[in-house]
């Protein structure tokens, strides 16, 4: 409460305090969900399925465990364009293998499959906790004057956005968002904050080598599209209930737009001008009547 009072300016009051919906970070959540499911599935396949005999060899079990997790890491990294997921899975697998070797369970398939199950449970619980902490670290304070974006587990980030600086409000809802009624709202400023770019590049090469002549040609082209995009700390990421929050933001932005006020002034001036004209005409009429 005291923290809230400290951040508030004069005549400022809080409209809403929001945190992202846990399912809005489904990309991150899927990291631990996959790891847990795969650990359980591998344990079940190697222990109870009709293919269990294949996994009686520890090397096969280890290879399958590594192979699928690394493949998922590559897929996750390519999807998110962040290689940190691949390296995270690599580190987890390496740590698991070293632990297994250290305690002497590596060369026994029976111990290895139990270890994989328990290790998957522990690691996925750990990742889930980190993801939860990351989600909870986001805080969006909507006041009558501005939006305060706060976040960060170790490094604290904060951004303040005044409504009069917002030129555009972008909103998006995925399928999960539509089902659970959450969505992401990106306020875009005049300076272009809240905008990102989608880039694509295509290239092709031709090489022809004769006995003496070598030829190499390369042709390429790129495309760039500006699109609303911001880090989850700098947007209203996965806020619930989406429609209500969006309406609130739109109303607050509308309330701070200067144009309606100016328009009102112009209308008043126009009315005054017309009144003056009428008065002038009346005076002229009066003057003519006197002269007659």
């Amino acid at each position: 409460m005291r923290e809230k009072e400290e951040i508030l300016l004069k005549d400022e009051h809080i409209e809403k305090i929001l945190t992202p919906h846990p399912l809005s970070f489904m990309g991150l959540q899927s990291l631990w969900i996959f790891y847990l499911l795969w650990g359980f599935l591998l344990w079940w396949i190697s222990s109870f399925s009709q293919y269990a005999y294949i996994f009686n060899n520890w090397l096969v079990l280890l290879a399958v465990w590594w192979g699928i997790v690394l493949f998922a890491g590559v897929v996750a990294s390519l999807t998110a364009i962040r290689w940190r997921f691949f390296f995270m899975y690599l580190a987890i697998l390496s740590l698991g293998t070293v632990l297994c070797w250290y305690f002497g369970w590596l060369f026994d398939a029976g111990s290895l499959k139990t270890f994989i199950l328990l290790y998957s449970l522990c690691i996925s619980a750990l990742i889930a906790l980190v993801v939860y902490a990351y989600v909870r670290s986001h805080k969006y304070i909507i006041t009558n004057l501005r939006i305060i974006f706060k976040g960060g587990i170790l490094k604290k980030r904060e951004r303040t956005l005044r409504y009069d600086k917002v030129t555009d409000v972008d909103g998006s809802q995925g399928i999960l968002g539509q089902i659970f009624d959450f969505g992401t709202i990106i306020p875009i400023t005049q300076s272009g904050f809240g905008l990102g770019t989608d880039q694509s590049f295509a290239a092709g090469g031709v090489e022809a080598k004769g006995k003496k002549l070598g030829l190499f040609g390369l042709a390429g082209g790129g495309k760039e599209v500006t699109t609303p995009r911001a880090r989850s700390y700098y947007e209203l990421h996965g806020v619930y209930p989406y429609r209500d929050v969006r309406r609130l933001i739109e109303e607050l932005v509308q309330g701070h737009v200067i144009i309606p006020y100016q328009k009102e002034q112009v209308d008043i001036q126009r009315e005054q001008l017309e009144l003056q004209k009428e008065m002038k005409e009346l005076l002229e009429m009066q003057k003519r009547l006197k002269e007659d």
Partner: protein
Amino acid sequence: MDYSAVDVFGVAPLAPLAGILLFWFIQLLFIESLKYGLSKIWENHKALCRFSNFMGIFFQALAHALGYTLTGIGVAEFSLSVSEGRVVPKKEKKGFPEWLANLFLSVGPFFVPPLIIFCIVAFMPDMLSVRPLEGFTFSENLISFGSLLSQFGFKFLAFLVNLDLFNPFHLGFLLLFLIVGLGIRPSYIGEENRRIGMLHDLSMIKRSLIKHPVYLLIGFVSLYILSYISLFLNIPIYVIVLSFFGWLSVISIVALLFAHFIVGLIWISDRLPSYKRFIPFSSLVLFYIIIRAVFSSLSLPYQYTVPLLLSPVVSLVSSFILLRIETNKLKSTKIMRQLENLSNLEGKDEGEGGDTTQR
């Protein structure tokens, strides 16, 4: 045996069609009933209802896209949301392809979701080895259709009751089965302006059928030709082909029943106070694990079937008993009965007083 020519050549080909219609109507009734069930839990489970609606829209759009693809029209745009689906044709085609694509749109959603289940089930050994009966007349064809349906139905049910929920793949199949049950048709619950029910579906089908009576006639003639070929070659291909739609209806009906069970448990859970609301589902899981563990450890026969059938029954019965105890608690207490009597007496007095004033 003497056969009437009218029966063999005129009426007999209609028998499997009548069978399909019957099962499809049953399917429609179950869909309506599920929509009603979903509307009862909408307030507390909007996400589940929206998910069910989304799956319905997804299957509908899939059927629509399939119709456009198979008729050679092609799909230019395919987009989905929780409240609507959009399938834009690539090229404008009038006549038969358009009629067929529209028929896919109106009838397809009832058969596309169970087709997914059928594609999985078809890989099970012995599932499709059915023996059709020989049929020449309407009644024989109807019996043949019914026989094919019952053969497949029993095998399918045997497959379902032998699912081992300790097997992650079987559990995944059951979840998919539930999703199919929940999403055979979009419910549009919560969207006041889009109440699409059974009558809307029927009128849409009627409209698309009678729009071009010539095409409908062509369809019937094709079916008759197929039945005659089947008759002269003495291969019951006609009944088998039409039975396939009956099989899909059977799958749908079972999936809808399963969805009804889950929605029913949710409905009961909502009516129970505090922690007791978790009892219906937790008891379902718990009973299954206990019964399954007992049967496995004692190596008893039907170790998959008995837990699978017994746990829902036990869970449902115990939930109903609990619901009855919880919701009827006040009615049975002595003080409440006395209060009720008192309020009745007061009500009578007030009524009489009111009359006097009026007079």
